[in-house]
C-alpha cells in the first residue's frame, strides 16, 4: 500500500506535505482539558493528537518510593492501540519505556524538585494519534500540563525535532519523513535558560549538518514556546472571564 516516494523534497524545496524546510506543522495547544487531573493539556501537532495530565504533588503510593530530600517524578508515555497504522498492544513496549524515561528527564530540569520532599508527581501522556515526533509533542504538552497544575517551574519546556530528508536539513519531520529520511534529531529546550533537556539522534549526519539541525530544532522550540505561553494566557483569560461573569 505504502509506495515509497522517489523524492521527499521537490525541486522547489517543498516537502511532501507542502512545507518549506524550516516550516513547522500546524500546532494547536489547549490547556486544562481534563476535569479530574490536577493539570492537563492537549496538543495537535500535525496529525499527532496527544493528551498530557499531571497528578500531584501528592503523597507517594507505595510510601517507600518517596525520597526524603526531593520530589519523585514518574512519567508514563503510552500509545492508544488505535493511534498507529497497525493496532498496538496496550502493554507497554520497550520503545514506550525508553520514551517515558527520556521525556521524564527532559522535564525534570524545569522543576524545583527539592521544594517538595517526600512527594511525587505523576505525568501521564496518552498518544491518541501518532504522526512522527510524538515524543517532542508529548514534552510540549506535558510541560503545559505541569504549568496548568500550578507547579512552580524554572521555565516551560518546548520540544521540536529537526533532521535530514534527502539532502536537506529540515525541521519538524512528519511520519513519512521520519521513516524514509536520513536522520532525526529530537530536542527539548528551556528557551529562557538556554538549556537543552532532551537530545537524541537517529541516522547519519556530518558534524556540520548536526550543528545545523540543532539550530533548526532550537528555532522550532522557540516558536512552539511562544505558542505555549499563548495557550496558557488563553486559559487564564478564560478563567478570568468566567470569574468576572459570575
Amino acid at each position, binding site marked *: *500500500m505504502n509506495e515509497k516516494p522517489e523524492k521527499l523534497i521537490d525541486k522547489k524545496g517543498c516537502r511532501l506535505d507542502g512545507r518549506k524546510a524550516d516550516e513547522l506543522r500546524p500546532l494547536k495547544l489547549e490547556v486544562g482539558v*481534563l*476535569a*479530574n*487531573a490536577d493539570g*492537563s493539556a492537549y496538543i495537535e501537532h500535525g*496529525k499527532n*493528537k496527544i*493528551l*498530557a*495530565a499531571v*497528578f500531584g504533588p501528592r503523597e507517594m503510593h507505595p510510601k517507600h518510593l518517596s525520597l526524603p530530600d526531593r520530589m519523585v517524578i514518574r512519567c*508514563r508515555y*503510552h500509545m*492508544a*492501540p*488505535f*493511534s*498507529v*497504522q*497497525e*493496532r498496538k498492544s*496496550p*502493554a507497554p513496549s520497550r520503545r514506550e519505556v525508553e520514551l517515558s524515561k527520556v521525556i521524564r528527564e527532559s522535564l525534570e530540569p524545569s522543576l524545583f524538585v527539592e521544594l517538595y520532599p517526600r512527594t511525587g508527581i*505523576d505525568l*501521564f*501522556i*496518552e498518544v*491518541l*494519534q*501518532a*504522526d512522527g515526533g510524538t515524543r517532542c509533542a508529548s514534552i510540549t504538552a506535558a510541560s503545559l500540563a505541569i504549568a496548568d497544575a500550578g507547579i512552580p517551574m524554572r521555565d516551560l519546556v518546548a520540544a521540536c525535532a529537526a533532521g535530514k530528508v534527502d539532502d536537506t536539513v529540515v525541521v519538524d519531520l512528519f511520519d513519512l519523513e521520519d521513516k524514509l529520511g536520513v536522520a532525526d534529531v529530537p530536542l527539548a529546550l528551556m528557551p529562557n535558560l538556554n538549556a537543552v533537556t532532551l537530545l537524541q539522534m537517529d541516522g547519519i549526519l556530518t558534524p556540520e549538518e548536526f550543528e545545523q539541525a540543532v539550530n533548526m530544532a532550537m528555532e522550532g522550540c522557540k516558536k512552539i514556546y511562544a505558542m505555549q505561553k499563548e495557550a496558557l494566557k488563553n486559559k487564564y483569560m478564560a478563567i478570568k472571564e468566567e470569574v468576572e461573569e459570575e
Partner: protein
Amino acid sequence: MSSLVTRVKLKQIEQLIAKGKRLDGRGIGDYREIKIEQGLIEKAEGSARVLLGKTEVLVGTKIETGEPFPDTPNEGVLTVNAELVPLASPSFEPGPPDENSIELARIVDRGIRESKAIATEKLCIEPGKNVFVVFVDVYVLNHDGNLIDASALAAVAALLNTKMPNYEVEDGEVKIKTGYTTLPLKSRPITVTLGKINGNLIVDPWLEEEQVMDSRISMAINEEGNICAIQKGGSGYFTPQQILEAKNIAIEKAAELRKKLGW
C-alpha cells in the same frame, strides 16, 4: 473517600432523591448531556468520542486480518478492550487491565455481540483461514461516572464510523487494495445503566452517586425494544420488582436516546 464523608454525602443524596432531585440538578430519570463526535482519529478505521456530562470516552477501531474461531469458521472476530488510562482519574493506576476494566470491556463486548450488531458473516475472507478482526478499543479519558453507558455509546458510534478495507485474494494471500467500504452493521444497541440508592432507581449515575450507591444494573436494548445483555454490578441487591421496573425504564430511556441520536 473516607467513610464519614461517604455517609454524609449518602444522606444528602438520599434526601434529594426522596424529593425526585439530584445533586447536579437532574431528575432521577434524566441522562446528563450527551455529545458524540465521530472520526477524530484518522489513522483508526473508525473512532468516536462521547461526552456524557464530564465523563469522556474515546473509542477507536482497527481492522486486521486473522484466523476465525474454530467453531465459527465463516465469521469475523470482534475483540473489545478497555483501558482505564490513569489520566482519567486519580483512582486509575497504570498497569495491566484490572477487574474493572475487564468487566467494562466485557459489558461493551456483550452489548455488541449479543445484539448481533456487526454482520460478522460478511467479514469472512476464506472460511476457516482468514477473516477480518474488528478491534474495538475503549479509552476512558475522564471518569465522572457511568463509564458503561458512555463506552457502549462510543463503541457503537465508532463502529458506525468504521471503514472496512477492500481486498483481493491472490494465490491464497490477502492483498489489501485501495478504497474502503463501510463496516456492515445490523443493529445499534443502546445500553442504559441504573443505580440503586436507598431503594430508588436513578438513571445515568455520576461519580458522586456511584460512590454511595448500593448497586447498578445495565441493560443493552436494541431497535425492537428487546433486551440483549444485562449486567448487575456492585455489592448490593435488587428486588425482583426493582428489576422489572429497571427493565421498563431502560427500554423507555433507550428509545428516547435512539430518537435523540437518530439511531
